[in-house]
């Protein structure tokens, strides 16, 4: 058995691998404890390279007992060598880990949901649910439809139109709560206590969150089995950053790589930056905030893993920073116009903070750097719709075209 137990991150008390997420004694969060000796004996680069072209090639380090029954195509997204953006920022070796094209719902959440729903089925659940800022709900709804599970998704009342539509189309029960994500989340914690549902990010969270490690695994493999010098990770609950750190270190533990020189850098929007603010103030605890930012997918004012994200960043000697909403929009446009990748607002946050960290000298020219782009820009069109201009409108005639673009009869030159 690769899973040994669930273990409390605070007091170390162990529990069976069921649908629980909180230590009964101290209320610390539970996480999966693996049998690393056993995994180390069977895992190898070669075995992984011969595995499926999805995140499931790393199944040995994922918390399910059998094989994937939900989300078989998630992950293994492109690692794009960002030469144009790198040159613009002054970085020799910059990569974009492009989860804007994850299958099937175009965000990194397809990874965590594939693990969560596979595990939920193993545990015998028929109904799945989640509290979500949008992307998670989309992914849970799609995967529930594909696996014939009943589904409830709870979202804040102010989400982007495409993220609401991206739930309704799969026909789950979409519950719009009057309040922000933190209100939705608290409500769901209370609902989860009363119903025997698999709440992917509550009672299934110890398994669900492990899916994010696959971003670290793929990074290492796609860089030719080496860990990068720097990563820039968007933070909402802080879970993704924490799990990328865990994933990198697990690869060393099981002998796939020799060392992890990676500095973790966390990115938030100024309008909701409890973790980055605490880091900059040198505190190991954060104060919850009331979010106010266009980066709605990152708008978690009371981040569940904020404490651990601070710890992991400090351990890795990385940095954190935050950007304004204007810088978010600039970041989205910069990535689109240099690399042809249209990211959602969270990606704008990541690129904005990457830019700041390069300017500050925290990330240097020669550092092998990976920026995680976790969601698709078509889902947050509201953020950029007023700042991308309009099409040039012409009559359907050659003359009209040539006059508009001031070209001679035989072409020549751009507008």
């Amino acid at each position: 058995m690769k899973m040994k137990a669930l273990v409390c991150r605070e007091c170390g008390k162990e529990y069976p691998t069921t649908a629980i997420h909180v230590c009964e004694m101290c209320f610390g969060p539970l996480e999966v404890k693996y049998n690393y000796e056993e995994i180390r004996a069977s895992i190898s680069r070669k075995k992984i390279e011969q595995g499926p072209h999805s995140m499931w090639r790393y199944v040995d380090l994922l918390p399910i007992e059998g094989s994937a029954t939900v989300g078989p195509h998630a992950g293994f997204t492109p690692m794009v060598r960002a030469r144009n953006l790198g040159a613009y920022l002054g970085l020799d070796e910059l990569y974009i880990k492009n989860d804007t094209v994850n299958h099937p719902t175009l965000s990194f959440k397809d990874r965590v949901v594939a693990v969560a729903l596979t595990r939920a089925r193993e545990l015998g659940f028929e109904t799945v649910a989640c509290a979500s800022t949008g992307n998670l709900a989309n992914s849970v709804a799609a995967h529930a439809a594909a696996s014939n599970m009943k589904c409830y998704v709870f979202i804040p009342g102010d989400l982007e139109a495409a993220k609401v539509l991206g739930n309704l189309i799969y026909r789950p029960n979409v519950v719009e709560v009057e309040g922000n994500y933190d209100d939705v989340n608290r409500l769901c914690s209370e609902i989860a206590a009363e119903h025997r549902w698999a709440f992917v990010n509550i009672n299934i969270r110890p398994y669900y969150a492990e899916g994010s490690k696959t971003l670290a695994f793929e990074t290492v493999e796609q860089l030719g089995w080496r860990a990068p010098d720097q990563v820039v990770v968007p933070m909402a609950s802080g879970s993704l950053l924490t799990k990328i750190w865990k994933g990198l270190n697990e690869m060393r533990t099981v002998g796939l790589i020799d060392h992890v020189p990676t500095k973790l850098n966390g990115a938030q929007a100024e309008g909701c930056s409890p973790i980055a603010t605490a880091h900059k103030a040198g505190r190991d605890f954060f104060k919850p905030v009331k979010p106010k930012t266009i980066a709605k997918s990152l708008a978690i004012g009371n981040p569940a893993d904020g404490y651990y994200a601070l710890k992991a960043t400090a351990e890795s000697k990385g940095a954190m920073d935050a950007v304004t909403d204007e810088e978010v929009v600039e970041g989205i446009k910069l990535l689109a116009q240099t690399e042809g990748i249209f990211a959602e607002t969270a990606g704008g946050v990541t690129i904005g903070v990457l830019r700041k960290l390069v300017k500050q000298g925290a990330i240097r020219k020669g550092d092998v750097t990976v920026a995680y782009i976790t969601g698709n820009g078509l889902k947050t069109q509201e953020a950029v719709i007023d700042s991308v201009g309009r099409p040039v409108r012409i009559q359907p005639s050659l003359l009209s075209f040539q006059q508009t673009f001031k070209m001679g009869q035989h072409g020549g030159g751009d507008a």
Partner: protein
Amino acid sequence: MIKVRIPTPLRTLTKGQGELEVKGTSIGEMIDNLNASHPGMKDRLCDEKGELRRFVNVYVNEEDIRFLNGKDTALKDGDEVSIVPAIAGG
């Protein structure tokens, strides 16, 4: 009286009851009274120094007490308190 919603992990101390009526003019006092009627409650909610544990979230009428006065947040008759251990999510 204050209406207090008890989370599942603490219901072993309340014979399974999910809601209790407790007296108290502040969160701190309410916890002391809760502990008097249901011994062991304070150990679970607070650390050795008597401070609320890192992963315990307390809400008064749906507002996080960290936006109010923390453990000193005043309570009045009819207030509703929710105790939510280890907010997950995200």
